[in-house]
């Protein structure tokens, strides 16, 4: 059993190596087979290991496999050691299973692309890096996976590198996540200085004994790790890269948003929960950042017109919910939302990709419309995903996970009514913009002619994900309705149980409010975009609403803000420093040699006589030295 662990990241790695070394000479069918096959095989192995794990839990609730020693110095060692516990199992399952479906979809989606092998090589490396990240036994190996994910996101966002805007988006993603990565690296250094180890199980056992709860050293470590998570998970204020990351192909967006990359921050915080629990400040910061992000991103999603940007902002917002849950101490609820979110967000991106491709690469939702009857498979699967995103009560997976978070935002140990209020406002906004998206894209008049319809390789992953977007929530019911909590039982083998406050209102009230708010959001979207569109026209006429819309459309102006605060001053500094005193030396050497060249090249005029005179003068000079010297 333990020996199978290494195969999970090794298979995508092998796929990457084969495709990147020989991909140029392989036919597309073999490339597709290797690319999708390696991840699918990893998914099957994961399911096999998962079954074993559930049936007969191993000692210490984790499988481990030591591959080899990576580095060893006097008092520091890091190994290539893999570890599979309950938390890792959930992440690995999502990464490989959803990843495999995305790969299968991509075999059809990318079929006309000339860089077919490069695409699958990068995708496989992406999956491999993410698997390393979640399976690492020590934080150094985890950091390797962490950076690998950053590299692959850069490669894939800029996949169509011939368009300058795509390259700019790839660079932006790389730079901004790099800010978080640097903070995280400093956090790891501090952690090593305090504890003398970066092995995760050792940190888990030593940290409570070493640190005083709330001490400044552990707070700094937790905040720096949180900053790392914020960068990768696109949380405020490092969220600006994610909407631009839509420059990549749709399956890449699905992979980044659902299975890999943006969930790395959630994983990091859940993995380091002992450190975070020791620092109430960091926990409060996590919750506050999650709450603010989910609201800000939700508002931005309302005003977008690009179908993929709407989904991008919704991802930021949903990850905000996960951070909120982790911050209030509802560990299993945060991971459960990750679990359901992976299915429906992958589904939404893949379905959006199918729509975009069928409409000749049209991204603007207001030039879509009327696709309900013409693309029924995409419509019904998209509906299932949208229902889960909006968290429609009882029939969608999103409801079960989001309802838990809303409930814990108030009643969990670190929860308070303010967080709940922001979260419930976010739920209203989410339901509203999801309804807007559905109605504008699938109802109304058809505005663009439909080209090629998606084939089976694209629709079957959509259908599987649609079914999962509905049923994935049924494994964890609210405590007061049905006593079934398979998911939290599983992850609480690693994560601590969620502690509740004293004297909170009964849970059923929260559920009813959440359901009512969701339905209200859906109704508002229905009224504004379907039933009575004249209200919207009136709003558009008023300048105040229009400027608010533009503010949301620009994502609260964060790009402009960073441009003014960081980018422009930096350019200004580089410009005034362009010709400083140090440059004079370098430039002086260049100018001197150029001048000398001009002088001496005058003497090289090709005239034989000139040369003879030169030789003669030289001889006379030497002789003169001999005689008179």
């Amino acid at each position, binding site marked *: 059993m333990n020996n199978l662990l290494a195969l999970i990241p090794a298979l995508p790695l092998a796929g990457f190596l084969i495709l990147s070394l020989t991909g140029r000479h392989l036919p597309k069918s073999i490339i597709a087979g290797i690319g999708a096959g390696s991840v699918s095989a990893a998914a099957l192995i994961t399911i096999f290991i998962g079954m074993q794990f559930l049936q007969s839990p191993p000692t210490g609730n984790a499988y481990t496999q030591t591959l080899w020693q990576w580095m060893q110095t006097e008092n520091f060692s890091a190994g290539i050691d893999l570890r599979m516990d309950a938390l890792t199992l959930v992440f690995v399952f999502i990464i490989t299973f959803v990843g495999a479906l995305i790969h299968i979809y991509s075999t059809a989606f990318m079929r006309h692309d000339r860089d077919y092998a490069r695409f699958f090589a990068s995708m496989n490396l992406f999956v491999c890096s993410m698997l390393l990240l979640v399976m690492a036994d020590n934080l150094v190996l985890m950091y390797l996976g962490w950076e690998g994910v950053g590299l692959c996101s850069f490669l894939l966002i800029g996949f169509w590198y011939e368009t300058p805007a795509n390259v700019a988006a790839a660079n932006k993603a790389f730079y901004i996540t790099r800010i978080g990565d640097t903070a995280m690296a400093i956090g790891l250094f501090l952690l090593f200085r305090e504890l003398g180890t970066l092995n995760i199980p050792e940190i888990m056992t030593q940290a409570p004994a070493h640190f005083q709860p709330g001490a400044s050293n552990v707070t700094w470590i937790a905040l720096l790790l949180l900053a790392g998570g914020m960068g990768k998970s696109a949380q405020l204020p490092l969220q600006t890269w994610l909407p631009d990351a839509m420059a990549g192909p749709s399956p890449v967006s699905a992979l980044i948003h659902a299975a890999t990359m943006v969930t790395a921050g959630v994983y990091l915080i859940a993995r380091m929960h002992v450190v975070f629990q020791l620092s109430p400040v960091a926990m409060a910061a996590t919750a506050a950042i999650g709450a603010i992000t989910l609201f800000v991103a939700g508002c931005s999603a309302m005003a977008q017109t690009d179908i993929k940007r709407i989904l991008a902002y919704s991802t930021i917002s949903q990850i905000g919910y996960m951070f909120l849950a982790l911050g209030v101490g509802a560990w299993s609820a945060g991971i459960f939302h990750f679990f359901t979110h992976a299915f429906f967000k992958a589904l939404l991106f893949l379905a959006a990709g199918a729509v975009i491709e069928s409409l000749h690469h049209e991204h603007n939702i207001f030039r879509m419309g009327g696709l309900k009857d013409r693309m029924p498979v995409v419509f019904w699967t998209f509906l299932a995903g949208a229902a889960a995103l909006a968290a429609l009560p009882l029939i969608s997976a999103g409801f079960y996970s989001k309802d838990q978070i809303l409930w814990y935002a108030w009643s969990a140990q670190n929860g308070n009514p303010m967080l709940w209020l922001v979260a419930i406002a976010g739920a209203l906004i989410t339901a509203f913009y999801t309804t807007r998206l559905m109605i504008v894209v699938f109802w109304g008049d058809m505005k663009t002619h439909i080209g090629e319809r998606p084939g089976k390789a694209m629709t079957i992953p959509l259908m599987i994900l649609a079914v999962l977007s509905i049923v994935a929530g049924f494994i964890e019911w609210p405590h007061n309705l049905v006593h079934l909590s398979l998911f939290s039982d599983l992850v609480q083998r690693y994560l601590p149980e969620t502690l509740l406050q004293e004297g909170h209102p009964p849970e059923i009230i929260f559920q009813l409010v959440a359901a009512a708010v969701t339905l209200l959001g859906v109704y508002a979207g229905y009224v504004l975009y379907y039933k009575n569109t004249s209200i919207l026209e009136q709003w558009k006429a008023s300048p105040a609403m229009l400027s608010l819309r533009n503010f949301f459309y620009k994502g609260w102006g964060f790009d402009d803000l960073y441009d003014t605060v960081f980018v422009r001053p930096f350019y200004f500094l580089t410009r005034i420093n362009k010709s400083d005193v140090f440059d004079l030396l370098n430039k002086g050497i260049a100018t001197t040699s150029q001048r000398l060249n001009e002088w001496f090249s005058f003497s090289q005029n*090709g005239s034989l006589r000139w040369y003879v005179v030169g030789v003669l003068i030289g001889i006379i000079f030497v002789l003169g030295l001999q005689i008179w010297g």
Partner: protein
Amino acid sequence: MPFNPQAVLIVAAILFVLGLVGVLTRKNIIFILVSVEIMLNAAGLAFVAAGARWGQPDGQVMFLFILAMAASEVSVGLALVMQTHRQHKTLDVQELRELRDKTEEYSSI
């Protein structure tokens, strides 16, 4: 007649200057080669005179070396003159200026 090395050296110097003036003023490569030969012979004459002055054979040995060197130099030089004439249809050194610095011409292209 007594041997007067000074007079011979003066003759050698006159020959050398004649050759040098020929090299500097002639246009035709063949005449320049001939002038070079005159300069070589002037040097040879100076060697012989010096050898006779010191009663040593070295000066005559050196003259034989100069002869051999001049013969080979002329054969190579004439071959080059043949090629020059074939390629450029002229032997005028004022027109054979291919090896000058052409930076300005390139930059103007």
